[in-house]
Each structure stands twice: as structure tokens, then as C-alpha cells.
């Protein structure tokens, strides 16, 4: 099928089998390898992406389910030259060891902060509970998300 959607802010159109997994489409068709496959069954969160701003697991989505939607991967949050505040905070606060869970974590944290711009430690832990990390014990990840929350401009409206 011809699939049209918005990917990291730009309109894209691609010919693909509708039953292809979204994660494979993103990684292999578009070379966006930030979304990782750690389990393939929705348990680890490493493949997290945003679909219209909501947190989704790209290993459980079919390519066709992206049609007409706005998809954001970790590559779309920021770049080496212009990282997002969360990505900067993850690097600065030592929240990254092997880094395999990191893109999914930053996506989940982005979704969390969009919903709750001023979380406490427990709220951060709750927000990241669907993303496994085997390296860090999560302490510095929580630190990084709170630091990023501090640095974000607050909407006082």
C-alpha cells in the first residue's frame, strides 16, 4: 500500500506492505534506528515513538496504522547539533550507559513532561515504568528528567 504520514515534522510517502511492523518500516525504510527492538512484544519500551504526541510502541504497530498521523522518533526530538532539553539532560546527568534504552526513555519522558510539566520523582518513575533499563538502576534517568523539567519554559497561562 501507499502510506502517507508525517515523520519527524516532514511529510513522507512510502510503498510498503500494510502488515509490516512500524518499527521495521522506520528502521529499514527510513534508516531511523533510534527506536530499538528489545523484545518485540511490547514489554521493554525500547521501541517507543510518539504518534500525534502520544506514547506508542512501534513493535506493536503496523505500518498502516501510521497513515495520516504525525510520528516522532528520538531523531525527531533533537540532533547532535541541537539536542532537546531532555536529551541534553540525559547526557549531562549520566542517565546513559549502554544507551540502548535511551531513545525510548527520552520519548517516554517527552510524553510524560507534555502531560505533567512539573513531576516529582515518583511521577517520573511512574511515567517511565514501561521502559526497561538494565544498566542504570534508573536513578540518574529520574535525575535527568527532573532536570529537564526544571529547564523547560513553564506555561503560566
Amino acid at each position: 500500500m501507499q502510506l502517507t504520514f508525517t515523520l519527524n515534522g516532514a511529510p513522507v510517502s512510502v510503498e510498503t506492505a500494510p502488515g509490516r511492523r512500524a518499527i521495521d518500516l522506520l528502521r529499514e525504510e527510513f534508516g531511523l534506528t533510534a527506536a530499538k527492538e528489545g523484545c518485540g512484544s511490547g514489554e521493554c519500551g525500547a521501541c517507543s515513538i510518539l504518534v500525534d504526541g502520544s506514547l506508542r510502541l512501534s513493535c506493536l504497530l503496523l505500518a498502516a496504522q501510521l497513515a495520516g498521523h504525525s510520528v516522532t522518533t528520538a531523531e525527531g526530538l533533537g540532533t547532535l547539533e541541537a539536542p532537546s532539553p531532555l536529551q541534553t539532560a540525559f547526557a549531562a546527568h549520566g542517565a546513559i550507559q549502554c544507551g540502548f534504552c535511551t531513545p525510548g526513555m527520552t520519548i517516554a519522558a517527552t510524553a510524560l513532561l507534555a502531560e505533567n510539566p512539573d513531576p516529582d520523582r515518583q511521577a517520573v518513575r511512574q511515567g517511565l515504568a514501561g521502559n526497561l533499563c538494565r544498566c542504570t538502576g534508573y536513578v540518574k534517568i529520574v535525575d535527568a528528567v527532573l532536570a529537564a523539567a526544571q529547564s523547560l519554559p513553564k506555561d503560566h497561562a
Partner: protein
Amino acid sequence: MTAIDALSPEDAFVQRADALAKAVGREQFSIDVTPPGCLWAGAKRAGVPHAAITALDMTAARAVPGVVAVLTAADVPGTNRQGIVHKDQPVLVETCVRHCGDAVALVVAETREALTEALDRIRPEFSPLPGVFDPVAALLPDAPLVHPDHVGGNVLVHGLMEKGDAPAALAGCDVVVEGEFSTPLQDHVFLELPNGTARTAAKGGLDMVVSTQAPFRDRFEIGQALGLNPMHIRVRAPYLGGGFGGKDGATVQCLLALAALHAGGRWVKMVWSREETFLAGYKRHAARIRLRLGASRDGTLVALTGLMHFDAGPYAHLSGEIMALGMEHAGGPYRIPHTRIEGFCAYTNNPIGGAFRGFGVVQTSFAMERCLDALALRLGRDPAALRRQNALRPGEPNAIGVATETGTDVVACLDAVMAHPVWANRLEWKKQAPPLTRRGVGIAATLNAMGYGRGLPDAAAVKLELTPSGAFLIYNSVPDMGQGNASAFVQMAARALNQPPEAFTVCQPDTRCCLPAGSSSASRTTYTFGNALLRACRSMREKLQARASLALLVDDPSRLALVTGGVYDPVTGQTLPLARLAAFLSRDDRFCVDQFTMPVVENPPETGKAFKFGFPHRYYSYGACVCAVEVDELTGQTRLDACVTAVACGQVLNRQGVEQQIQGAAAQGAGLALFEDTALTAGHMRAQDLSTYLIPTALDLPDLACIALDDNEPSGPFGLKGMGEIGIHGPSPAVAQALADATGLTVRRLPVTPEAVLDALAAQTSGTSPCN
């Protein structure tokens, strides 16, 4: 000029060089390498623990459109045996399946869909054989044999470590405590699944990109198994998405190489699924350990005897070496005049035991610390004070009679955690337990050796390049599986050559252009490669001074100083930019090469003769850990409320890096204590994925605290010691003791389930002494 071995205060807070590329998703792991048009390889797993293959019909699989090759043991050109020390693991089994994860066939296909379809169509027929699923039962005379032709039956290794006369000393002790302890299989759950990409290259060579901890050794394992010249195999190891020991030794390597040999020069990719990784991947060894610990009335430890059985599974991997390290650590960080530790490592039809952070020490540390707690209880002593009283001090002989080095700071580690509010205020905190909850606090002291040990040279060679543009390229030989060694190397070299970190690039391990080094393991990586790197940096500094002196017309090169981007003459005020200097050098002249081998125990004790490779060890890091738990009386659920670890691991090169290792290790230790259970029954793991094998999530852990003490190891690069493993040992025994403190449960096996806690609470009500 900055001294080469001086750290400045800001060094402790340097951001990791790899952090930002990983944060923005730009870092390319092995699994991110998918060459266009590559083939896909996959293995058919046996799914039965012990059986003879009676029929293996490949016709249906070969008929699937898109299938390129369907291979069996008959297609393996070499010995068909892989293994690190003992070569006993078939790449593809011939006639006998020895565990559920054995590979019986290999398929290469154009697409993943064709691969899956073909694997489904392979239906091997088995004639079941009686299996052996327990390392103690494996030694009985009538036990089924895992390898009928193995001399020694199911005994892979039997060894003894002895000091003094422990049985006699034990008989004369005022007080003796004893117990039998069980620790389970543990899965690494590195997030990046085992994977790699390979193709045949010109002249019969192989080019591979693999998620591996040991690229240099992989060549020999593949070469042996497939009958290839190891020097014609190129292995590249990008940053790993976790390893923890589980990628030390071949995972996909031999299967993938075999697939590449049948791919007509095309790239082939192999990725194990999570379920396959549970089934076929290596595990921390399950162990059963019986200890008897004797002391005098005042609490002074006198004698320890131990008998342990490690479950190797069906293939050796490093099982004997792992058990040996556990035995060497069995006495903990304590002064014990008499010890006798006997170990049997047995073949079974369970999953394959292999390297996992803590390498045998996790098991024995748990047993020994439980005995310390039992002794404290028996003597009515404070468990912390009892440990402190018996803690090893510098220069004293350890449990196997090796004199400890300077920096044996067990007491300082214990003091640090005892001063922490979690321990200091524990009585008050326990009193504040909410209704229907119980609270308890436990403590443990730990040690972990660094390096391979005597008999197996722990070495690394390094190549350092001044690039044509005047920057530096470090050819890293030891994979970075997430511990941050690559970044540490940049930090060290930057300090040694007085350049900003941005001046350095790291080439990740590539057997074609990097020089050989041992694996990323054994708390050795940063110490051994770091020492080699500092030597190369010294050569580079002298070279730059000498070559610059020619251009600057300076008689004494040593008066020249390295400054950012240049070589500076303080007498004339002239600076020669490194870019200009580099342009002036021939290619060969831009490189410095050096190597380092870790010193070993010079006069090893006359014991442990069964262990030729890697015994004994000279350098140790030390630690202490306090854990606090809250137990729900209604559900039996245990919540880890606090975990504080103090470590003495030499000088701190990067405080954030040390905290990362300690927190991550503590999380894995907590997982072992409370969550992780493969539910192994007769060789089958009922836990098969991440919804049934539970590792801690962000909601399951407290803010794990780390106290890194000021310490110094004179032989270490910038005074550091390895510390990637020391943090994993504390949580299991400390949680166990905390649970005993809270509920009266005597914890003898891990993990501690809510059911065991509920049983303990019920038993306590009825006045009996519960144990799990």
C-alpha cells in the same frame, strides 16, 4: 606541564564522550547494521532438554520460497565445537540434544518472513533421554551422563582451596553456624539482543559486525568450530547495548559465520529473539553452597568449610573458572585463619551457565554473608560490628592465603554505610512502619577481584595515532558494553597529553586495525587497557616533543610542553601546532604502540591446583551495602526502600561513571534478590520473556545510593581499580538479612518470593522458625 598521573577535581565530573550520540539516537549498535538486500539467518532450537535426534527432515523447509540454505551439523566444515577453554559445544548438534536451547538446524533466507516460515517447517523427531537437572544429583553413580565420553562423567571440574586445617579448627570452635544456600539461574537481559552481520570477503575471509565482548577471541572460537583461519576473520564490535558477561563467548558468532559461508558473498544478518535468548543464551550459574563457619565466643572468625555445586549446564563455557572465582571469594572480605572450600562443577541438561557480572562471587558472597548474619544472631552481636571486627586489613592474608594489597579498605566501607542514616537511624525507621507492614534493615560486606588472575595473562595492546589533521585517534581493543570504558580512555589520554577531550576520537574494536586485547570482562577493562594507553601516551608525548624540537630548533626536547593543539617552547614562546607537526611526519611515525599485562600474585599459595587458568587474584575492590525493606503483611510483597553501597575501588577517575556502575550493579543484585526467577523445571524455563521473567522497573527500585571512597591503587592508571562488578554482591545478602529482621524469615534461597514471606509471617505467628 601537567604531570601525567595527576587528576584535577573537574575530571571527576566529565560527561561521557558517548552520551550525546546515544541520547539523540545516532549511535549505531551492531543491531542497527542492516545492509540493503541482506539475507537473514536463524536457528531451529531443540526445545527438549535431552534427546537423541531420530529424524531431521529438511524438505519442507527447503521448499519455502526465498530460502537460500538449510544447514545441519553435516554442513559444518570444522570441528563443530565452540567454547572458550573447553571446546565442547556443538554449533549445530549432530545426534544428541543436551539442553532446550541447542541448535539443530540453521536456515538462511531472503526475508525474515521466509526465515520464520522455514524454521516452522522443520519438525525434528526426538527420542527422549532421561535428563539430569541438578548439579548434586548429576554426581550420583546412576545419573544420566550429559557427555557419555567425558572422562569424569558429569564432573566438569572438581577443586579444592585450603588454608590451615579447617576441619580440626572448626571442631575446636566455641560456636559454629552452618547452612545450605541456593542461588538461581539469572538472565542478563541486556537490551540489545544477540546479533551480528557477516559476509565472506575476498580470499576466503569473513567480515563480521557483532555485539560481542571478545572480538579478538571470537576469531579463534569461530576458526576452531568452522575450520577457518582465525586471522582471516575480521570482527568489529560497535558499542554494545549491554552485555554483563552474556556476550563473552560466542552467541551468534559461529552460526552466523556458517550462514555467511552459504550466502554467496552476500551480507547475512542474525538476530536472536528475546525468547530465543532466554532459551539459548548463557545464564548466571545456579549454585548450591553448604558452609560451616566457626568462631570464638568473642566473635573472632576461626574456620570456614564449604562444599559447593555449580550447575554448568551441558557445556563448559567458563564454568570451572567461574566456580573457582566463587571459591576464592568464599571467605568474603574477612580474616579467617583456617579455610577449606571444595567445589564440584557439574554438567546437567539445564541452560548453559556462563559469565555474568560477579562471576561466581555473587553465589558465594550470598552464602557467606548469610552465615555472618547467623553468627551475629547466635552471639547476640550487632551484624555490622561483627563484620567490622573481622574485616581484612591491608597486608593480611585473605581466605586462601594471598596477602592483600594496600587499599584493602573494608573497614572504611563498613564505616561509610554504618554512618549513613539508613543504618544509623534504622531502629527509629522500623518503629515508624505503617499498619500492616514490617520493616527491616540488613548489611553486607563484599569484595571482587580484578582481572583474569594468575595463569591467564590479562593483557591489552594499544595503538594511538596522531591524525594527519593533528587530532588523536585511540584504537580501542576492548568493547564498550555500556560501562563507559571508551569514554574513560578519552579522559585518560586527554589528561596524559594535556589536550581537550574533543581532540580524541575512539575507533571501536576492529580486529583488522586495533591491536589484540582480552575481553571486556572481569573488572579489568579500564585498568588493563588504560595502563597500556597511558604508556602509549607517554611515547606519544616524547615523540611529539622530539619531532617538534627539530622544527623549533630546540636542543633539549624535554623543555617543550604539550598545550592545547600544539607543542610549546616556554623559552622562546613559540608554539608548533599539532596539525603542522602531523603534516611533517610520515604515516608510520604518527603511531605509538604499547601494551600492558596485569601483575599477578608472585608467590601463590600451594592450593587450588585444579585451577590452572586464572587463580589466584592479586587486586580486589571492596564494598559494603545496607538495604532497607518494607514488607506488606497481607500480600507478602517486599519493597526495597533503600540501598546504600560504599566502595573502595582506587582513585575515582569519573565519579559519575563510578556511580553508574554501582547503581546498575545494585539494581541487578536487587533483581536477583526479589524478582528474577526463570522458574526452571526439568530443564525447561517457564519464564520465557520479559513479562514472565521480571527485572526491576523504575517503580521497583529506590534511589540507589553510592558512596565512592577516596582510595588509591598504585599500579592502576590514575590510581584506579576495576569496579564494574563489586556493586552487585551487596543487595542479595543485605535484602535477605533485612527480610529476616522484618519477618523472622531465614532466607536460604533466592529470589525471595511473596509466598515465602507470607509463609514466614504465618509461621512466626504459630511460633516456629521459618526458612525458605
